[in-house]
């Protein structure tokens, strides 16, 4: 359990991952991309440690590291979604400032840092690029949040690392369709018009890609 807010430090990560590996190798052994990728998971746990350092110590060095990795990718996402370079730059800085301001709301047992930053960037895209209000679901109501369990956090980070690998190993055509569905302001029918593929084919290919991702996560 993470009994102290700052219980997990950078020095703990390799040890924590190794400990998790020992207990779970049976589940993941010998299954191609399902194999436990210690390195990819360690990278994600390092992001978690950095977000926690921002939350607890207003640690500028940790923030600078997160900034260096994520800001160019957030900006890329916003530009591919139709923002001009200047607007994307401005929004990216706002997204990263939100990360600082909302670091206390991040829960590593529920999301990878990449997922969390993506949702912040997506929200900014709707606010600024699309100029729309953004209806948000109700929060869950089961009482005060417990400190995230460390094993849950590592498990979630590991699963997301697997998802990333699964996405990278999709056939190029399927990966591109998924990317365009997320990045572009393109509906499936617009993609159909652009690629010359019938709409039914696009939908079934996206479905196939998602099925593959799900299968890789099992």
């Amino acid at each position, binding site marked *: 359990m993470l009994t102290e807010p700052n219980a997990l430090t950078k020095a703990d990560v390799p040890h924590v991952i190794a400990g998790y590996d020992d207990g779970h190798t049976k589940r993941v052994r010998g299954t191609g991309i399902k194999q436990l990728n210690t390195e990819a998971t360690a990278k994600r746990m390092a992001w978690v440690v950095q977000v926690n350092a921002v939350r607890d110590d207003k640690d500028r060095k940790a923030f600078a590291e997160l900034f260096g990795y994520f800001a160019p990718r957030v*900006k890329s996402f916003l530009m591919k979604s139709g923002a001009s370079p200047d607007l994307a730059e401005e929004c990216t*800085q706002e997204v990263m400032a939100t990360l600082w301001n909302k670091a206390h709301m991040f829960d590593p047992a529920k999301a990878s840092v990449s997922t969390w930053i*993506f949702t912040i960037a997506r929200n900014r895209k709707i606010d600024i690029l699309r100029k729309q209000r953004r*209806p948000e679901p109700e929060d869950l*109501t089961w009482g005060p949040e417990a400190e995230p369990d460390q094993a849950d956090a590592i498990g979630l980070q590991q699963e997301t690392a697997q*998802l990333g690998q699964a996405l990278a190993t999709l056939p190029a055509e399927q990966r591109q369709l998924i990317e365009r*569905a*997320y990045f572009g302001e393109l509906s499936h029918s617009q993609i159909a018009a652009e690629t010359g593929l019938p709409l039914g084919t696009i939908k079934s290919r996206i479905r196939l890609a998602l099925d593959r991702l799900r299968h890789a996560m099992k």
Partner: protein
Amino acid sequence: MMNDMKQIKHHLTEPLLMGYAAGTLPEAFNLVVATHISMCDDCRAALVEYEAVGGEVMLDAEPVDIAEDALAATLAMIEAGTGAPTTGPVRTKNSVFPGPLQDYVNGDIDSLKWRKVGGGVSQLVLNTSKDASVRLLRIPAGTAVPDHGHRGTELTLVLQGAFTDEEDRFGAGDVEVANEDLHHTPVAEDGMDCICLAATDAPLRFNGLVPRIAQRFIGI
């Protein structure tokens, strides 16, 4: 909330969850999705997965150059307190209107300014971006909504009561996703008025002459 009232049978489709996760849906559809997710733990869990895919797609993107002073500018923004979190609007629990919908309507079922649209059915159009429209429908118990087809996609989420059409029965929390292939005549169940949240990205197409004329005036 509604979770423990009834088992939800009809859920959001994959493209809707993905579109909400990606931020590419019209506001009217986002409202239906967010409202359903407030009532449905299955779809809430599924949304988390689609958001995770989005995060990985973003990581995979070719990084682009950022301004040289971007980090310094961001730290200055943080110090100035711009973009500090603000508290959202006040939402009440155990309302027929889940939280996201409360942000769009002013009042409860009986205090809203419903407009009659014929056959005893009333509606209240909500204010969203113009790429799609969304309205509350109040269908008196036992009453039918005129037979209609769709040019685009229509989402109908039941908030209270239930309706039955050619497809199935839809109770509180259920969402029906209809496209141009579906012509249906929803009938509200006896017992209580059926309250629905309905969004469409194209005008509905009514099959009778009178509803078609009425449509020009009521803006369905």
